[in-house]
């Protein structure tokens, strides 16, 4: 249930199959599993769990780690997990015998692990290496309520409305800035035989993207984050207006989204059957490299309320943490310092097409036009959010919101009852 589907479709079959192995093969590094005894107490070995499972990401991780190993003289044993399964089993994983360094993301869940003592305080790494390396916003996203940092960020994969530049040029479309322009564009696309908005909500979580963006545009980031934190009622008029606005946009989406997986929806964009898609940067994995990938372009989700504007960006931030009781604490902290460093970020994000560096000093020289545009959006963002399933309690997000959003897509008319249902469940989960 995470927006990092580990692989492209059959268009790149090798890559796809690599994903088959991606259910967690060890990278070919010395110190095999099975005889773990040796590595357990070995100060030169650091173990790492990586949830970056698709082929490009594995290569990127390998490169970055290669640099670290050369510089530090230590060896890193990597355990790669398929991202979705990892998210599902993370609770059990962390309570078992987790690796020293763990790939994860910023947001509620990280703070939760910190509170429960499942991960270690890494403020020392921050103070040693990362003063001024990240924006305050990013830093606060890596900070737990106790004021200490528990994660080192390395990359981000923001959301935007993606489209094919060539399609826009061919039909003479212009990038919409406001809601009216957006709707008009959708209608033009429909008339030209395209599906205006690709939509694949079978897995459930992709629906959160639209909710988030509409909420951000209609009610602003403070309200949005407070809502997800349990501070507002879901039965409020603000939330209902979000669903109302969504209902108005529904006719412009691909029909029957509930039976279509997100990969299939992305494929519609690749094939030129759909005009646009609200998606994360991970869509770049689906576009074949070369002409197609170069054709990919995006724009920020349009403005709905002039007073709020359109500068809030959903930029989920990925990074690394140290487990609560690592076998090699020193090595783990050192590795973390490396992974967040400018060098490592630049190497990693150069290879993983969906990732943009979070380091303030990261050079934009090697960026594709798409990367540069997205990077600008993030850099000039008024506020950054992480995506609903990272910003709020996961039991609320997966057990309550996904069924609720899917229900909305089936029956967009009964908004009052829907929000009432959500609110009642939210009360029982948040306790307030």
């Amino acid at each position, binding site marked *: 249930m995470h927006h990092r*589907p*580990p*692989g492209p*479709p*059959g*268009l790149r*079959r*090798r890559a*796809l*199959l*690599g*994903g*088959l*192995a*991606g*259910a*967690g*093969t*060890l990278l070919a590094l010395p110190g095999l*599993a*099975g*005889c*773990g*005894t040796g590595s*357990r107490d070995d100060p030169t070995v650091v173990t790492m769990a990586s949830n970056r499972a698709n082929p490009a990401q594995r290569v990127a991780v390998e490169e970055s780690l290669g640099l670290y190993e050369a510089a530090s003289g230590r060896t890193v044993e990597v*355990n*790669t*997990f*398929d991202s*979705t*399964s990892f998210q599902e*089993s993370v609770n*059990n*994983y962390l*309570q*078992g*015998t987790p690796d020293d360094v763990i790939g994860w993301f910023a947001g509620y869940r990280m703070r939760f692990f910190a509170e429960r003592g499942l991960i270690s305080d890494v403020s020392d790494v921050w103070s040693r290496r990362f003063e001024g390396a990240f924006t305050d916003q990013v830093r606060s996203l890596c900070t737990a309520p106790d004021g200490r940092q528990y994660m080192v960020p390395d990359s981000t994969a923001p959301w935007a409305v993606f489209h094919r530049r060539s399609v826009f040029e061919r039909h003479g479309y212009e990038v919409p800035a406001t809601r009216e322009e957006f709707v008009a564009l959708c209608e033009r696309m429909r008339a030209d035989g395209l599906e205006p908005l690709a939509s694949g909500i079978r897995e459930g979580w992709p629906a959160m993207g639209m909710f988030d963006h509409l909420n951000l545009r209609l009610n602003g980031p403070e309200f949005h984050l407070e809502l997800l934190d349990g501070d507002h009622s879901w039965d409020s008029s603000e939330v209902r207006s979000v669903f109302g606005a969504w209902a108005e946009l529904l006719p412009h989406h691909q029909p029957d989204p509930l039976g279509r*997986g997100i*990969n*299939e929806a992305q*494929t519609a964009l690749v094939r030129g059957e759909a005009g646009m898609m609200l998606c994360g940067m991970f869509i770049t994995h689906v576009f074949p490299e070369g002409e197609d990938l170069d054709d990919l372009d995006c724009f920020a989700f349009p403005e709905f309320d002039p007073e709020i504007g359109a500068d809030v960006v959903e930029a989920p931030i990925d990074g690394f943490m140290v487990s609560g009781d690592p076998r090699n604490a020193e090595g783990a902290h050192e590795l973390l310092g490396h992974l967040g460093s400018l060098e490592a970020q630049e190497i990693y994000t150069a290879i993983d097409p969906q990732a943009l560096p979070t380091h303030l000093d990261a050079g934009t020289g090697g960026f594709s036009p798409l990367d540069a545009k997205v990077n600008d959006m993030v850099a000039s963002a008024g506020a950054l959010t992480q995506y609903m399933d990272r910003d709020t309690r996961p039991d609320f997000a997966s057990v309550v919101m996904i069924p609720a959003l899917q229900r909305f897509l089936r029956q967009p008319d009964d908004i009052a009852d829907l929000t009432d249902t959500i609110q009642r469940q939210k009360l029982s989960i948040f306790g307030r």
Partner: protein
Amino acid sequence: MTATTLPESPDREARSPAPGRPARRRIRPARALLHAFLVVTALAWLFPVLWAVVNSFRDYDYTALHGYLSLGGFTLDNYADAWTQGELPGYFLNSLVITVPAVLLTLFLSSCAAFVLSSYSRRFNLVMLAVFLAANLLPPQALLVPLFRLYNAIPLPYWISESGSLYDSHLGVVLIHTAFQIGFCTFVLSNFMKAMPTSLLEAARVDGATVFQQYRKVVLPLCRPSLAALATLLVTWIYNDFFWALALLSSGDKLPITTALQNLQSAFFVDYNLLSAGSVIVALPTLVVFFVLQRHFVAGLTLGASKG
């Protein structure tokens, strides 16, 4: 397996009440109809599987372009790719490591238990059987969390499980499968053993054999058909399981093949052809076991019936 219902069953189609005078000419059309019906039904039955197999031999780019209702684009690549790059051998090995010990352990433990239960006082016997049988039927989801905590709390030496505990170890999965299957196997075997003549056991006892020797030398060999049938059923069930592995293993490289396929499918459902090839490969062992040993499957289900 021949139809043993009747020594010379009056053909059901025969309308004439008198047996022994099968009006042969009247039977043909009805028989033909029967066969026709069966053939059509069997083909329809096989169709989904055949469809998957056919598509596993087709190139995805071709079907993406022409749709699935076309003909053409045949290739063996999917299989080669699924096998090599998908690293299926590793997952097969995991399945083997889980299935074989689980089957053996289950058969051993349940035959021991059945031996004890079939020889002694009724009431206790029934209570224990009830305990065993009912355990087989409990929904696994209901046991998940306590089992997980239990597994995490049981330490294991690192040379058995690199996670240091029963969780995320093959042994843990083997044990839960065993626990779940013991009930049914014990029940079946105890029925079988009860039907054995006690004279053999008496003779062994008179010869001074210990209980375990009686079990090993007398009872076990006699149970062989029963054990064979159970083994074939168990292999299918345990190999096909994906819930327990999903729940109790967290290292991707320990997953058995069925769970690995499921992980794969959740991410890559677009290339159906490749997944079909993967599925066929995964299904092969059970299919082989089934065809080779189908006699035992049927026998397994009739165990305990009088003709045992």
